[in-house]
């Protein structure tokens, strides 16, 4: 159950249709900073995939590519899974809109086909704010919120999009453990209900094990998929349960190994092109 | 007032006056200056005691500002700015010391307009609200029983606008005529098939009325009457040259215009315009006073006392020395 699969596959061969598929994707920044190197990965429809990796290994880059915000230098990306929502590493709220209006904007675009009234949107925004435990903050502006609160608004906004694929870049990084736990539950519930496909970046291995169907490990510079761990623990899981802890420590050990292996190159100049290819 | 501390930036100054700063416009009605400068009459008259420094202006207000600010000592200028300078300074700033040019103003209209009656409901341009031409047409229309007002209303709509613009708007048919000085009158005739309806000179006694004269700063006159005299000597010589050798004068004018504005006037234009202007040392004081009266009558000017605006003593000395007839300031 906790043994990592050693084979690297772009997609699981169990007949599931992939919602997102990366095929030998590489990304070079500037002249010679190879951020991603022939990464192949797929997220099935309805699958929850967590992405782990050291700081600067290319996780955000990957999400940006999947979201179509940036173009891969090589390789192909398929996103047939439907509409994509994304939560950035920063909250990226619009400072000129109130918290509620930020969410309403997402609702409005989403529902451009079937028209919702302003009131409906406002109500839905209020609901979403309740979900992220920010009821009553709808009339504030982003700059009046704390860091963690902003992150939660960004979460609410991403959920508001009602997309089929959800890309999340350290969505709970600025939250305390308690709030985090509560939001894990909410996220899991919504994921289930809406049958979302989720690609979830985190630094918290337990969180990854708590939430994911599969945990993907990325190596550093250049970023490549080094290992995938299917998580078959029954849901609902608890972050502080023994099984989660056990699996987490296995993954952590593997990650540590990888980080240490790369510790030296990380100290060398990167622009020099030494570590490419 | 003071005024003795000038000349910091311009290099001129009152300390042992070695420079005479003369202003004029690069304009055919300022031919006395153009010829005098080109032919070196001014430089010659001033001799080694003082050098001539010229300044060209594109319009009266700038020249007046320069006189007021002690930036120039004398300038050729039209009657209106002179009256304004006189009245605004309550007779302190300037004196008219000589006449320069007379005539050369016409009402040019579109073909088909044959008399004052045809002007009803038409648009006629003048160079500037309240200037001599503007006053002249309004007074003339008033005498013909046509009403005008200062805002372009009335029987005939008077639109004050830049002369250059008048050429264009006449060409495109936006206006029906204009009361303008040379060389614009000639250009309207030559370029846009305009027709001369009124020659302003015909409205004046002896067909003489002032269009350009020479003014000096009063203080300069007080402190350096000798220099003013030299200036006037050159001025008289220049006018004499123009009248005795029009061909040579025209050549000089065009050469100077070429120097100043990069472009000479077309020959036929110069010929026609030059022919219509008389160059005279007489400031034709009567026309100035009458014009001011007319301005008051058409409601463009508060009554102004022009007594003392002339100081023709030096001019008359110079003329006397040359055996010419004196001019008067009435």
């Amino acid at each position: 159950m906790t043994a990592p699969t050693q084979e690297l596959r772009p997609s699981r061969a169990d007949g599931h249709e992939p919602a997102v598929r990366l095929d030998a994707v590489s990304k070079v920044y500037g002249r010679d900073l190879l951020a991603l190197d022939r990464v192949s990965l797929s997220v099935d429809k309805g699958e929850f995939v967590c992405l782990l990796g050291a700081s600067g290994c290319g996780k955000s880059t990957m999400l940006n590519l999947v979201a179509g915000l940036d173009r891969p230098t090589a390789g192909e990306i398929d996103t047939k899974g439907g509409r994509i929502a994304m939560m950035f590493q920063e909250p990226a709220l619009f400072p000129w809109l109130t918290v509620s209006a930020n969410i309403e904007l997402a609702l409005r675009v989403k529902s451009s086909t079937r028209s919702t009234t302003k009131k409906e949107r406002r109500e839905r925004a209020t609901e979403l704010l309740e979900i992220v435990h920010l009821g009553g903050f709808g009339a504030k502006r982003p700059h009046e919120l704390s860091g963690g609160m902003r992150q939660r608004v960004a979460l609410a906004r991403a959920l508001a999009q009602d997309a089929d694929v959800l890309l999340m870049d350290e969505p709970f990084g600025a939250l305390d453990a308690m709030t985090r736990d509560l939001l894990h539950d909410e996220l899991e519930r919504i994921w289930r209900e809406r049958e979302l496909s989720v690609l979830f970046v985190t630094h918290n291995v337990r969180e990854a094990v708590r939430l994911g169907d599969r945990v993907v490990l990325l190596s550093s510079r250049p970023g490549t998929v080094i290992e995938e761990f299917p998580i078959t623990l029954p849901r609902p899981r608890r972050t502080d349960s023994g099984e989660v802890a056990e699996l987490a420590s296995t993954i952590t050990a593997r990650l540590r190994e990888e980080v240490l292996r790369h510790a030296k190159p990380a100290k060398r100049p990167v622009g020099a092109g030494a570590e490419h290819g | 007032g003071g005024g003795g501390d000038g000349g910091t930036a311009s290099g001129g100054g009152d300390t042992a006056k070695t420079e005479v700063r003369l202003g004029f416009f690069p304009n055919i009605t300022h031919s006395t200056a153009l010829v005098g400068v080109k032919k070196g009459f001014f430089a010659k008259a001033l001799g080694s005691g003082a050098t001539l420094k010229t300044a060209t202006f594109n319009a009266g207000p700038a020249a007046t500002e320069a006189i007021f600010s002690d930036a120039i000592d004398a300038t050729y200028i039209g009657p209106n700015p002179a009256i304004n300078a006189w009245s605004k300074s309550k007779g302190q700033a300037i004196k008219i010391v000589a006449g320069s040019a007379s005539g050369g103003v016409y009402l040019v209209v579109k073909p088909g307009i044959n008399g004052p009656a045809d002007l009803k409901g038409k648009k006629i341009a003048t160079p500037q609200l309240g200037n001599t031409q503007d006053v002249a047409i309004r007074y003339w229309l008033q005498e013909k029983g046509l009403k005008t007002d200062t805002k372009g209303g009335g029987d005939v709509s008077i639109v004050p606008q830049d002369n250059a613009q008048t050429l264009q708007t006449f060409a495109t048919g936006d206006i029906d005529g204009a009361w303008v000085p040379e060389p614009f009158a000639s250009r309207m005739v030559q370029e846009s098939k305009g027709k001369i309806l009124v020659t302003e000179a015909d409205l004046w006694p002896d067909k003489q009325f002032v269009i350009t004269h020479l003014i000096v700063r009063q203080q300069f006159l007080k402190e350096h009457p000798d220099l003013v005299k030299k200036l006037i000597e050159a001025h008289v010589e220049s006018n004499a040259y123009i009248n005795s050798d029009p061909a040579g004068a025209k050549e000089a004018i065009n050469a100077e215009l070429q120097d100043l504005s990069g472009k000479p006037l077309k020959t036929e234009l110069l010929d026609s315009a030059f022919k219509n202007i008389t160059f005279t040392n007489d400031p034709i004081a009567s026309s100035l006073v009458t014009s001011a009266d007319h301005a008051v009558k058409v409601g463009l000017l508060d009554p102004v006392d022009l007594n003392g605006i002339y100081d023709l003593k030096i001019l008359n000395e110079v003329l006397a020395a040359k055996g010419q007839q004196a001019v008067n300031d009435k």
Partner: protein
Amino acid sequence: MTTDISQQIAGLDALELTSREQRGLPSRIWARVWPMLSAIILVLVIWELVVLSGWRPEYVLPGPITVLGDLWNRLGDGDFYNAVAVTMRRAITGFAVAVLVGLVVGAAVSRVRPLRAAFGSLITGLQTMPSIAWFPLAILLFKLSESAILFVVVLGAAPSIANGLIAGVDYTPPILLRAGHILGLRRLALYRHVILPASLPSFLSGLKQGWAFAWRSLMAGELLVIIANQTSIGEQLDNARELSDAPGLLATMIVILVIGIVVDMCFGAADNALRRRWGLDQRVG
């Protein structure tokens, strides 16, 4: 006032500390008004002193009393208000058209590459073109009508406004663009919901500059066409100059200044509202 001044001097010492104390409305208004009043009084005093020194004769440099007297006379005259009304109407109409044109041109040029390469620099080129250069064209196109004046005003102001928008668009934080893109906003919607609001500060300062250009162009343009029964500030300014009427000129300049200041205050109010909403008024200290 003494305590206020000493407070303000203390404020000078601690330059970057702006107090966020809650004060009453009258005291806040007073805090805005007294520096202005002092400035005005200071200027008037210096001016009067220069005049009294006899540096220049009164007809060249009239004293404040003469000028204010002249201004007072104007204020008592109906014509003055007509002139202000005419000029303001033209300024506002011209400015409104310029805003429209500037918005469209700015939006197009800022987002469409080839348009930008083709016309981007032309915008500043047009901005540097003095108004008088347009007069012949204005008359060709619009005859002697008020439209000719508006044409000159629009040509003066629109480039500024377009440039302000373009600068704003260029400096829109990429992360917000990305957020908008992810929300599914494209083209016009992205423009409306993200780029325009994000560019607002820069656009606003473009508007301010545009107003200045519009006004200056108008002052020149009002000499272009003198329309029946309509006197205007531009005309009055020119008349004062033509007549070498120094007090009149200065009085008209004061009128122009005051209008400019009032307009700036409107822009300033908009600006402050914007900054408060964006949380930019949170200063250190």
